[in-house]
């Protein structure tokens, strides 16, 4: 990967990543030379078609499935929408109108489920506890005779907790219930295999692992009838109309292979830096790590700091060249803080003071140490002007984070 172009310490890799050089270079021939439409009959078109089918095989190999089970989409959100709507409609044909998911899914899942509720489906959202992990036992208890689908994210986008997908997959397979996982934050960061995980439907997005934006994959196990979201031409076995974005697909495949190849040694390196960052931020008084410390993505650090608000924290970190993210209401334009933080039991007062730092393989130990110092400083500065902090310190109010 290329050198850092500026002095920004980019710690928002769960939002999106910088494209890898390998991915960019994999795209270029499909813009310069092999640019024809894979649906065209002429030789250039057939060359593109051949490339498309070869790249489908490569992606299938990484995920452990067959090429015909891979559908290229515009990204994770489209894949989530199509997976859930398809499974729901398939279930409805058998009179199954119950869906199980979790309280802290991505909005691409939650809002699709809300749409299905409006259509008469019943949705059970399992609680995730303070650790931010749903258990196979919870899923087992929730499954009913009319359950059409279980949808559980592989790893959470805000707090990085990894779910027991293999165990839930096994359970669902035994009980004959379709299982979807939103693996957008997981693929390329932890090992994912649709066969050993017994997943029926899986969504992924290229730009989360140094691939291009606007492209993703829906894996659908053979035998599952997908419903079109986009109608038109016969691309993607007739299940996703629109000329294939071949350059982006090539970039995604290259990024995916690179990420998976590097994973064994890189995840340890990133996780060590993550732990260093967690240890450093834990030294700030009245701070708390969000989500399990152990079952956690290698690059995710999420904290709440009592007595301050997240947006002002982000702005002051930005001033110091640190790009971060927050689940605070003020950054989203809505009144409520992140549903993920509320789901793990953080009360509003505390959830407003949240900070998410997501690392990549380009993050250095120096970046981590600079960030620890900056966050420590900025939190102290904001607390010094916070009437909430004054009340907490004077004992007028009790600390929520001890």
């Amino acid at each position, binding site marked *: 990967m290329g050198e850092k172009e500026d002095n920004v310490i980019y710690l928002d890799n769960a939002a999106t990543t910088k494209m890898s050089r390998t991915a960019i270079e994999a795209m270029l021939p499909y813009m310069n030379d092999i640019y024809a439409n894979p649906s065209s009959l002429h030789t250039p078109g057939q060359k593109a078609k051949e490339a498309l089918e070869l790249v489908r095989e490569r992606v299938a190999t990484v995920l452990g499935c067959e090429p015909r089970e891979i559908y290229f989409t515009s990204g994770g959100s489209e894949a989530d929408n199509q997976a859930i709507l398809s499974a729901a409609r398939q279930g409805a044909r058998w009179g199954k109108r119950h869906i199980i998911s979790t309280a802290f899914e991505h909005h691409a899942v939650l809002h699709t489920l809300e749409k299905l509720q409006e259509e008469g489906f019943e949705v059970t959202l399992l609680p995730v506890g303070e650790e931010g992990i749903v258990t196979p036992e919870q899923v087992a208890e929730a499954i009913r005779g009319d359950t059409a689908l279980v949808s559980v994210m592989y790893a959470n986008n805000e707090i990085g907790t990894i779910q027991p997908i293999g165990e839930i997959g096994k359970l669902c397979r035994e009980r004959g219930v379709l299982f979807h996982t939103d693996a957008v934050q997981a693929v390329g960061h932890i090992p994912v295999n649709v066969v050993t995980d017994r997943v029926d439907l899986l969504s992924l997005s290229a730009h989360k692992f140094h691939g291009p934006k606007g492209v993703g994959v829906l894996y659908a196990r053979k035998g599952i009838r997908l419903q079109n979201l986009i109608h038109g031409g016969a691309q993607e076995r007739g299940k996703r109309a629109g000329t294939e974005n071949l350059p982006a697909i090539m970039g995604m495949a290259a990024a995916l292979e690179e990420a998976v190849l590097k994973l064994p040694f890189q995840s340890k390196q990133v996780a060590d830096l993550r732990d260093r960052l967690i240890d450093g931020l834990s030294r700030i008084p009245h701070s708390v790590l969000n989500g399990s410390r152990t079952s956690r993505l290698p690059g995710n650090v999420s904290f709440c700091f009592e007595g301050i608000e997240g947006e*002002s924290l982000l*702005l002051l970190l930005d001033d110091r060249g640190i790009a971060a993210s927050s689940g*605070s*209401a003020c950054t989203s334009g809505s009144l409520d803080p992140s549903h993920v933080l509320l789901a793990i039991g953080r009360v509003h*007062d505390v959830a407003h003071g949240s900070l998410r730092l997501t690392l990549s393989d380009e993050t250095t130990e120096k970046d981590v140490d600079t960030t620890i110092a900056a966050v420590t400083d900025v939190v102290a500065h904001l607390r010094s*002007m*916070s009437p909430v902090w004054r009340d907490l310190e004077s004992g007028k109010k009790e600390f929520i984070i001890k």
Partner: protein
Amino acid sequence: MALYSEKVMDHFRNPRNVGALADPDGVGEVGNAKCGDIMKIYLKVEGDVIADVSFETFGCGSAIAASSMATELIKGKPIADALTLTNKAVVEALDGLPGHKIHCSVLAEEAIKKALQDYFERNGIEYDRSLFPDCENCDHCSHH
């Protein structure tokens, strides 16, 4: 970030009149931690004039900037002027705020009014109650 004007960022980065005043003549606090903004204004009054003013704020960048600007707008001014300070004047002085941040300026106006009300109460000065925020019966903070 281009979310805010340079003026907002200046007041956010270098807040004026920040901290508590010793022996204030009036204190006003509005907002709640649940919705993510609390502003507290401290006043020192000499005669009819706001001799000194300071603030403490828990909130986003625009909440801190609005508090800072509001204190600047009333410092050294007659009480009558402070009483008529509007949130619109705060927004204008900051060269604007994004739509969903206007409530921060409303909080600044209300915090100043609340501090003045406290000053009137402490000194037995009569005032028109209808001109002041009624935080006990107002749902502003849950519906902005």
